């Protein structure tokens, strides 16, 4: 029987305190009335009000959201294709190069990815803006998507696809009617991952964006370089809140599903016995 020792309890408590205290403090100070971020001067929501009126931030947020939605959608399509090729493609010319190109961006320092893409865009004379950021984000996040999807495909029972073919489906129908619905959760988490990576990215976006398009991380970075600001605290709080609500509801949904599956399995057991 596993039992938590005092050491375990202490390390868990301190560990999670370390992970969460900075963010909790950030959230608390976003409601600070004082301009001086380290001195508590009473509760206020005025920084949120100022944030909403800050057009530059709103514009940047809009650009970021647009880029994230478009690039993660493309990344999901391309990444799923790439995963399918990696797992099911069999042998083809340059397979090693292909899998290398899928895995390399995962470990490539962002500064290098950003620099290399920028040099490409200049080389082919592409004006930097939303389009170039989308291209850059699609490229690196499709690799993450393909890793997520291919790990699902590897454990996928191939005879399900064969059964679909055997029952008269064309290969495309087999993919659409059988494979895709079953791997859908992995594809969706791939999309979410790509979306978050795009929302988060500062370095690659800095290299590939132009004066016409500034993303939120770029805006935040240039603001916080000068020091802590209460407006950024408020913005951070909003972002943390969105993520927290999202992740918690996603995990509740998955918990409900696994509970249901457990119940079903028990019911099947009874039907069997």
């Amino acid at each position: 029987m596993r039992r938590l020792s005092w050491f375990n309890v202490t390390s868990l408590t301190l560990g999670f305190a370390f992970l969460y205290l900075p963010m909790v403090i950030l959230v608390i100070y976003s409601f600070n009335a004082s301009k001086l971020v380290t001195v508590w001067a009473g509760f206020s929501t005025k920084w949120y009000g100022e944030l909403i009126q800050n057009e530059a931030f709103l514009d940047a947020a809009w650009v970021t959201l647009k880029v994230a939605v478009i690039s993660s959608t493309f990344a999901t399509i391309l990444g799923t294709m790439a995963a399918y090729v990696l797992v099911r493609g069999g042998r083809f010319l340059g397979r090693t190069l292909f899998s290398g190109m899928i895995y390399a961006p995962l470990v490539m320092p962002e500064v290098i990815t950003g620099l290399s893409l920028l040099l490409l865009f200049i080389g082919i004379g592409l004006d930097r803006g939303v389009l170039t950021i989308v291209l850059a984000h699609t490229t690196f996040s499709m690799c993450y998507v393909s890793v997520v999807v291919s790990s699902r495909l590897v454990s996928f029972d191939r005879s399900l696809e064969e059964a679909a073919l055997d029952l008269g489906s064309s290969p495309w129908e087999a993919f659409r009617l059988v494979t895709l619905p079953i791997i859908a959760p992995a594809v969706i988490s791939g999309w979410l991952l790509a979306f978050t990576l795009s929302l988060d990215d500062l370095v690659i976006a800095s290299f590939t964006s132009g004066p016409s398009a500034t993303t939120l991380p770029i805006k935040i970075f240039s603001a916080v370089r000068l020091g802590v600001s209460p407006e950024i605290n408020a913005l951070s709080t909003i972002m943390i809140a969105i993520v927290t609500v999202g992740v918690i509801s996603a995990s509740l949904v998955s918990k409900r599903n696994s509970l249901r599956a457990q119940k079903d399995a028990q019911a099947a057991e009874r039907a069997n016995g």
Partner: protein
Amino acid sequence: MMRRAALITVPYLWLLLLFLVPFLIVFKISLSDTALAIPPYAPTMRDGLFALLAELDFENFVFLTEDDLYWKAYLSSLKIAVISTVLTLLVGYPIAYGMARAPEEWRPTLMMLVILPFWTSFLIRVYAWMGILSNEGLLNQFLQWLGLINDPLTILNTTTAVYIGIVYTYLPFMILPIYAALDRLDDSLNEAAEDLGCSRMQAFWLVTIPLSKNGIIAGSFLVFIPALGEFVIPSLLGGSGTLMIGKVLWEEFFNNRDWPVASAVAVILLLILVIPIVLFQRNQQKQAEAEQ
């Protein structure tokens, strides 16, 4: 058959055009002439391959060896990455161990709590420490209130702050693989060790640690590799004394606008990274084979 070809070609071409080609451009520019290269670099893409090859020189790399800024930046990046990997392991292992020993029904929640920060903006998580570590920040206020110190400690804009930042942001990467390894560990192994005469502590060192080795290795690489090329953490938390190669590259590019040198810095950074990446791949492969 046509469909299969299309399926392979689309992502393949995409990666060739937007990953491999840019990369070759970096390589090429790192070998081109600085004088002509501000901006844009001297030969454009339209010059033929021969012209391109004829113009190659190693001037930029020679420059990197002459200016000791670059050497120091590489070495200090390596040092910071190694030390912060070890620190992350020391902080992360007890947490992963505690999670693995927690009651079954808590574990999904604990897992979620570790993953949650990962979904939160990296930039914001680093930024959160700026308010805490500054001279009049909460940490100093707290220590002064406790009476431990009289004058505020200077932490922000030092290498110490960079360590804290790296440990904090990459901690989930360390915890998850170690937890996965510990979670698979059969409890009866420790009981067998104790049955055979080990103390609790000995059983931990002789059984638990060796069997979680793969998790430790995977976690260490997952922290070390991104830490080496890190830019955001040193530029927000580090000071002028904190040299890290990612930051040098950025400054070379955006501030000095010296693209060939920036490219040469990138090429060298990659060469340094190749070794840990290959080692990491091999470790993952070995693990995958062992599982089969």
